[in-house]
């Protein structure tokens, strides 16, 4: 499997002086691999180092040390225009292009790339057909974000960066946005996204990394993150008038015994593994 992104020992700190204590250590030596064609989500609380990491990968920021390959190039030393021709970037909220229509903005940016996508097709794929002639300042938050994504994919990128793409969306808008992202993946685009929403990571990502205090705490598929698949199962039921709860490594065996004991339906039975959110909070809580 080839890697769209590979990172070894990435370190980045900020601050004017080199005196200890005054520098902010944003990224403290992370390793990361994003496979070609996958959706990879970077999770973590504010200040975890997500944005620093992503902006280094995007070529916006320099790094202090570490090995970096993004689409086979090192963004710090590569011919940036040639490399950016293959990369799409969706930043956190922007307000540019207020005086231009959706169509005009996209047609303009398409001219920066050697092999742009068709403007009308892109407008359709992000669902902005009806807003084609609306100016940037007249778009709602969700429509604005769709335009941002449209600008991210207009150059037909091999790799797309999405920084907190659905912040401020209503649930319906998020669902249809997820559909859009899945369509991009099925067309072969590799996607690295950061998000605050665990359900979003679970719904979209092939793999997830959790970052906290500048390090990667864990990296796995959403169903295995933090040993979620090996966590004890929580079984709840009602018996002789009161609610019972059992955490067990052998849920099947426990249920067999339970159903032998209670005749018929077991009242108010539920069997659950910890949610991604519970696992996540455990992970970043354990780091404090």
């Amino acid at each position, binding site marked *: 499997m080839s890697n769209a992104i590979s990172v070894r020992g990435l370190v980045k700190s900020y601050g004017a002086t080199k005196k200890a204590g005054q520098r902010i250590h944003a990224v403290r030596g992370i390793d990361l691999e994003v496979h070609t064609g996958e959706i990879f989500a970077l999770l973590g609380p504010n200040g975890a180092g997500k944005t620093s990491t992503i902006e280094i990968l995007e070529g916006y920021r320099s790094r202090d040390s570490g090995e970096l390959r993004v689409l086979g190039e090192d963004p710090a030393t590569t011919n940036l*225009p*040639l490399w950016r021709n293959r990369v799409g970037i969706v930043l956190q909220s922007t*307000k540019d292009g207020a*005086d231009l229509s959706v169509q*005009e903005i996209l047609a303009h940016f398409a001219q920066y790339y050697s092999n742009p996508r068709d403007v009308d097709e892109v407008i359709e794929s992000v669902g902005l057909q009806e807003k084609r002639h609306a100016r940037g300042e007249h778009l709602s938050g969700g429509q604005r974000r769709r335009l941002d994504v449209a600008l991210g994919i207009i150059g037909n990128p091999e790799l797309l960066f999405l920084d907190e793409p659905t912040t401020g969306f209503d649930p319906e808008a998020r669902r249809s946005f997820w559909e859009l992202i899945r369509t991009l993946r099925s067309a072969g685009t590799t996607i690295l996204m950061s998000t605050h929403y665990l359900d979003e990571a679970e719904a979209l990502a092939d793999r997830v990394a959790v970052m906290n205090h500048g390090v990667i705490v864990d990296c796995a598929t959403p169903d295995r993150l933090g040993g979620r698949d090996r966590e004890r199962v929580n079984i709840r039921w009602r018996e002789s008038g009161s609610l019972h709860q059992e955490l067990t490594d052998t849920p099947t065996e426990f249920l067999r015994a339970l159903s032998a004991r209670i005749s018929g339906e077991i009242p108010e039975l539920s069997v659950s593994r910890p949610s991604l959110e519970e696992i996540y909070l455990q992970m970043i809580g354990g780091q404090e």
Partner: protein
Amino acid sequence: MSKQPGVLAIGFTRGALEIKQFIRQRESVVFTLLFPILLLLIFGAVFKDEIAPEVTFSQYFVAGMIASGLVNTGFQQLAITIPMERDDGTLKRLRGTPAPTASYFIGKVILVFVSMFVQVALLLAFGVALYGISLPTTPERWLTFTWVMLLGIGSSTILGIAFSVVPKSGRGASAVVSPIVIILQFFSGVFFVFTQLPTWMQNVAALFPLKWLTQGMRSVFLPDSFATQEVAQSWEHGKTALILTAWLIAGFFIAIKTFRWERS
């Protein structure tokens, strides 16, 4: 796969886009194009005196306003709009695309030149129609007009880019930049006859480009006899070229050293 578009091609596209956005922003059209004309009409109606044989204050003022036009469309426009574009994400987004840095500045230069030509043409048209200004009559004067305009707009553009790091935010940019321009206009022989100003004011103004631009424009539009009315009793073309070039070069290095794409 076709070839990647070049620096110039993208620069021209950006220029066209900049002009489109300029036209759609009502404030920019009003402030850059209408406001100077309004000032011209007001001052022209109030001050009608002759300040020297065959020279009225209105004529003196038209020359000064044309010089100011170079500062408005270059320095003022860029020092206000670049911080706004830094705030609204325009600059950061551009840096994330294959568009070369130079293309952004080529686009700005195109915008500045187009808005300058429109503003100067409007001022000239009103000056000729209402205030007895005549277009340069000799090739020498056209030549002076051209180099003063080019050096003026060049240094004004570069200094606007250099100054764009000063305003802390896009919203506050106008409040930082406009007063500087207005004060310079008072000091530099736009609103008042330069030689009637206190000496300290003249000395301060002589450090900045606008004073030299107004003097240069007077040498184009006022009779040669008026040269004796200037501080040095001459048009001082050599000194003007030298000072404007010095600002141009200094501004260039400051801009390269300090330009920021993001709010810090």
